[in-house]
């Protein structure tokens, strides 16, 4: 059996009457990049703070490694937290910041210096020891924050929306950087974010959360291609959802007297389902009759994005559909009536 670094068993957290985290259980394998993904207020940050020991669970048990840490103070836990705002100590320089956790461990000075140097190499900022925190750029602050959190060689590094304050370009850079650092040090990362792009880019596994509960846990591909519910489908990869009733390999649509051919699925007949189709799986054009499903549509909006074109179309039955197509030198204009379609293999059924 694989080693688990983090295990949560039926953890609940209440603030007064408000249930922030509602009976969740999951485990994270050693060395994995694990993301808690969900909209704000879904309980993901509270979950992370409970792992860090900054909040106490109302019910349930938390294990880090094999140890039950439910009663262990934050400063004695084998995990470290990377803060949303990084929280570098403003009155200390870079090496003092990184060394802080090591000093608390009472390591000898020479060992501390060695480790600080190593860590700065890992995060790609060698020679930054004497810099003051005010002199660092946004991306550098993040890297130093990670170095500081990794200094004590925690079993688990907890990250709370670390890329939130960065601009788009820097964020993309840091995503790659984070993943690289994680591979180099081999530490288990538990990552909290509301950004599906970040989660998809970096994670090995994702737990999608909503209103204090975990809706689905799985590999990134699984969540992307086979969202269990409409919520997950909309949140990850921005699927198009068309609701209807399943019957014998078809879904009869609510708004339209037609059906979508889906092939056989493990769904009971007459169940209400959401058909989800990824924007990039839909074809658009005037002559696509050879697909399994073809519908009439009108183009409402066109967004040209260079390599891709994003069409927002209104399908018959008043369904708004988003389509991503590779740009091959041709753009359909707004208001054009045409056809859209997809194969039955490109369809996934989720709970509504």
């Amino acid at each position, binding site marked *: 059996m694989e080693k688990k670094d983090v295990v949560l068993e039926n953890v609940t957290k209440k603030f007064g009457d408000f249930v922030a985290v509602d009976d969740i259980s999951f485990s994270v394998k050693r060395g994995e990049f694990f993301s808690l993904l969900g909209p704000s207020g879904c309980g993901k940050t509270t979950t992370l703070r409970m792992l*860090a*020991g*900054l909040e106490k669970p109302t019910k349930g048990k938390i294990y880090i490694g094999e140890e039950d840490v439910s009663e262990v*103070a*934050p*400063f*004695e836990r084998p995990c*470290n*937290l990377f*803060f*949303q*705002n990084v*929280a570098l*100590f*403003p*009155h200390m320089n870079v090496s003092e910041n990184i060394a*802080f*956790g090591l000093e*608390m*461990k009472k390591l000898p000075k020479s060992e501390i210096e060695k480790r600080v140097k190593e860590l700065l190499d890992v995060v790609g900022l060698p020679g930054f020891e004497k810099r003051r925190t005010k002199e660092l750029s946004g991306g550098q602050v993040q890297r130093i924050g990670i170095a*500081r*959190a990794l*200094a*004590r060689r925690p079993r688990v590094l907890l990250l709370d929306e670390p890329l939130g304050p960065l601009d788009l370009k820097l964020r993309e850079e840091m995503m790659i950087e984070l993943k690289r650092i994680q591979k180099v040090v081999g530490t288990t990362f538990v990552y909290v974010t509301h950004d599906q792009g970040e989660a998809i880019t970096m994670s090995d596994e994702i737990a999608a959360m909503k209103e204090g509960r975990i809706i689905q846990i799985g590999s990134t591909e699984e969540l992307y291609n086979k969202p269990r519910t409409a919520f997950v489908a909309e949140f990850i990869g921005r699927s198009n959802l068309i609701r209807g009733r399943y019957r014998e390999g078809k879904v009869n649509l609510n708004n339209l007297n037609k059906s979508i051919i889906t092939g056989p699925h493990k769904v009971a007949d007459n169940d209400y389902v959401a058909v989800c189709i990824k924007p990039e799986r839909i074809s658009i054009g005037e002559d696509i009759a050879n697909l399994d499903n073809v519908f009439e549509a009108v183009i409402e909006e066109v967004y040209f994005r260079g390599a891709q074109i994003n069409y927002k179309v209104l399908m018959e039955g008043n369904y708004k559909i988003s389509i991503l197509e590779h740009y091959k030198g041709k753009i359909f204009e707004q208001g054009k009536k045409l056809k859209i379609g997809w194969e039955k293999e490109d369809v996934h059924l989720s709970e509504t």
Partner: protein
Amino acid sequence: MLRYIFRDIGEKGFKFYFFLFIAVIYLPLVLLVVFSFNDSILMGFPWRGFTLRWWEQFLHNPTALGVVKNSFIVASVAAVVSTALGLLAAFVLVRHIFRGKNLITYSIMLPMLFPGIVVGISILIFLRSVLNIKLSLFTIMIGHILFSLPYVTLILMARLIGFDRSLEEAAYDLGASEFTTFRRITLPLIMPGIFVALFIAFTISLEDVVIAHFLAGAQATIPVFVYGQLRRWSGLPMVMAISAFMIMIMAVLLIISLISARRRY
């Protein structure tokens, strides 16, 4: 065209007013310092030549020197004690929610809501008629600690409200205990606020005449001594030297705060 000329005059007028304001508020102080060297027993114009007589009188007068010493003792003790009291209270008022918090905040602000004279006389009659304590430097300290408390507490509260708690959490997370976190993170970061509080409390005490006037016994502070001399209009030239001395202290305090402000902004 005319509009622009008027606007120009308006802008220049503003600038003129600004520098005039500074000149006028400093004028009396400059005159005092200059005329403390005037060779005349009458206080005021005209200038009759340079002398160090009044400064010598002041520096050889044991009463006057004692008064200076008293002022610094009282101000130092009052500043330290009121800052300590204010710091403890500010921590609780900013970081905890409890019943009666508003009432307690309001009562700590109370000394600021009365004129100093009311504070002075009420402490006076309490100490004299109820506790039967003799007036001394100690009684002045009591009054000054009370009077600075709201200012000090407000300053420290403002600092603590602006304090990023996640810095403390980061320290816990990195293995620091509560005490170590306070010593290594919280205290260094609020130190500037503590210095401002000490500075304000020290200044309030050093410059106060209202409360000290009622609570001073045989031992006076500088303002009380000068007030007494002025009311009798006696020993005037020497009083001018003492006043000039106080103004110079003010200038030193001002320069200190200028330097520390430069560093911060």
